[in-house]
């Protein structure tokens, strides 16, 4: 996808003006938050599980070189081929070369954000291969020509009504009914023969297991297994941070991932893959290619962004982010939206052109609270802002504003006078109605909401009066 993070403000304006987007986001994020809260409440050992997961990831990252070598050795022994890609372009070239050497015409794909990150669609176009997305949400956005707007539910920006309209136009045998069950049935009919007849399958992986050379996929639809079993060749593209030491370590994360992502105890399908088809096996690919992708992950290892490499891509941070809920995923203009994306996008694509992302955050802290591996997202976003300031990136206006604030904040008497005056002014503007519908110079803020009337007296005035 074409990154548009540099025009974040314009993206946001467009998103806020889109009436159905707010409906789609509200319907989905509300359900996801409710389901997650319930299933976490029922998991009495959750705090300990989260702590264990954090420690396992930190241990794995501390010994990443060891585990990558161990994984490679075991994967090779299982009959897989292993490739190393420093950049998205390297990864695309590896995929393109495999497709060409197999003379592939069609490729079925299992949703993977890493695939989006390296531009797998572009790689397949270059190789002259027809790409068939099999995950329902990816199928929807492929038909609509949209980029993904969420890392777990890429079609979150679409309402049921919009999907019904899309399928009616694009499917060979669309359903006459518009309920969700009928829509899912229509996609099932459309994709069935494509699963069976593709030349190549391409997936990502949720985990790499060093001790066995296995990789793991989780889905609810069962499309990973249906996609990767019939074709002769299976290509896996995966980030090097997906490593865990052993099968039992993976179990710790499998308990957390599905709970955090969609509010269930486990996904319907969890599959551990170990090499290509064995002698005597009746199905499975003859060739298995595993592409290990860096794309700045090794840079993040020696940076304050290191804890971000714990991320297991559950999407809970975006489901609980008030900014995401208001503007949706497309506004971020990058593969990874929401809080985790606002950290990853600058790390992977540079500080330039992404400077609005770390600032599109209220620092309310919900993202860290719900993160199943305890990533300090607000701290990292704050550190990215500091780095922007060091690199002299903020605009003249915001630097002027910060300097003005610093001048006030270091002069207590002046500061108190200023806050007392603005408190009085705001109370006058409220005219006793308890709310303020417009404020000079803040028309943009009050267009979609009211400002509450402040209490009588500033904090310092109340404090002095002993009304603590």
């Amino acid at each position, binding site marked *: 996808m074409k990154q548009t993070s540099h025009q974040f403000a314009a993206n946001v304006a467009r998103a806020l003006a889109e009436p159905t987007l707010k409906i*789609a986001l509200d319907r989905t994020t509300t*359900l996801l938050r409710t389901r997650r809260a319930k299933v976490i409440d029922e998991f009495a*050992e959750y705090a*300990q*599980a989260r702590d*264990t997961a954090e420690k*396992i990831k930190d241990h794995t*990252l*501390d*010994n*990443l*070189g*060891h585990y*990558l070598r161990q994984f490679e050795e075991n994967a090779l*022994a299982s009959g897989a081929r292993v490739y*190393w890609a420093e950049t998205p372009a390297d990864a695309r070239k590896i995929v393109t070369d495999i497709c060409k050497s197999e003379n592939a015409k069609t490729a079925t794909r299992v949703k993977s954000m890493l695939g989006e990150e390296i531009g797998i669609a572009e790689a397949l176009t270059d190789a002259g291969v027809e790409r068939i997305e099999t*995950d329902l949400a990816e199928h*929807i956005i492929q038909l609509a020509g949209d980029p993904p707007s969420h890392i777990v*539910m890429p*079609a979150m920006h679409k309402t*049921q009504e919009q999907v019904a309209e899309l399928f009616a136009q694009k499917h060979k045998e669309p359903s006459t009914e518009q309920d*969700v*069950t009928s829509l*899912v049935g229509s996609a099932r009919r459309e994709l069935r*023969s494509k699963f069976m007849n593709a030349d190549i399958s391409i997936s990502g992986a949720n985990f790499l297991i060093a001790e*066995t050379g296995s990789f793991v996929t989780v889905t*609810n*639809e069962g*499309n990973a*297994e*249906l996609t990767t*079993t*019939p074709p002769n060749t299976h290509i896996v593209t995966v980030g090097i941070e997906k490593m865990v*030491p*052993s*099968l*039992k*370590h993976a*179990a*710790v994360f499998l*308990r957390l991932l599905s709970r955090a992502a*969609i509010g*269930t*105890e486990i*996904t*319907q*399908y*969890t*599959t*551990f*893959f*170990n090499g290509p088809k*064995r002698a*005597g*096996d*009746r*199905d*499975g690919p003859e060739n298995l290619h595993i592409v290990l992708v860096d794309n700045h992950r*090794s840079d993040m*290892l020696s940076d304050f962004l290191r804890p971000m490499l714990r991320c297991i891509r559950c999407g809970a941070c975006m489901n609980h982010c008030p900014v995401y809920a208001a503007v949706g995923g497309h506004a971020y203009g990058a593969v990874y939206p929401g809080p985790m994306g606002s950290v990853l996008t600058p790390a992977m694509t540079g500080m330039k052109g992404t400077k609005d992302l770390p600032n599109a955050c209220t620092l309310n802290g919900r993202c860290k609270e719900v993160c199943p591996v305890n990533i300090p997202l607000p701290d990292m976003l704050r550190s990215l802002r500091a780095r922007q300031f060091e690199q002299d990136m903020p605009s003249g206006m915001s630097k002027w504003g910060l300097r003005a604030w610093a001048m006030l904040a270091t002069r207590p008497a002046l500061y108190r006078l200023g806050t007392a005056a603005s408190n009085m002014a705001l109370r006058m503007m409220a005219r006793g109605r308890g709310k303020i519908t417009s404020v000079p110079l803040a028309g943009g803020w009050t267009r979609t909401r009211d400002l509450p009337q402040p209490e009588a007296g500033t904090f310092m005035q109340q404090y002095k009066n002993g009304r603590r």
Partner: protein
Amino acid sequence: MSRDALLAKIDRANAGRGSDDVKAAADALIAEPDRYRVTFQAMPLFDRFVAKATSETVTATVESLDGLAHLPAAVSAYMAAKDLGKRLALQPRASLTSLDWTGFETVDTAHMNEPLALTFADAAIAETGSLVFQTAADAPVLLNFLPLHHLAVVRRSSILPHMEDVFDHFGTGATDQTRSLNIITGTSGTADIEAKNVRGAHGPRFMHIYCIAD
């Protein structure tokens, strides 16, 4: 950058961080699994498995049978109740093929729109109500994914408490693994349209589990 250069860069970034005994350090982190996983000591494994497998989120149905010999009659009853005809995709595994399937039209591979398949699960997980399938010459993958109705057989004695127990049972080393290990928890579902849960996305819409007493 080559493999070696990337690994060297990673090693440099991690200088001074690595564990002396990596395996011991990794094992120590998961030494007390009951502290971080769901526990249900008070509940018998079978009861927990059934409760989870038949829950609202897993949506399987469970039937207990006294022995494998009762399987053909039970499958026949299921097919009659659902009006599924006589065709049965049967996993080519001796414990199943040796039963008396007179009256069925059995096949050993599933076609694209297979209505029904019967397969043997190698284990089950009580914690989550999941079934575990290892691939083998007589256990292909697609029989568990293509049919609309997935009928699965599992011995009551192979219900294990947790996923970790499955790994212990089959082996945790590289050479212990078959091509794939599928942990299947109920029916194929999706929540990709407005997070509304719907069944039968690409895989089976129905799962019926026969628990065999042994």
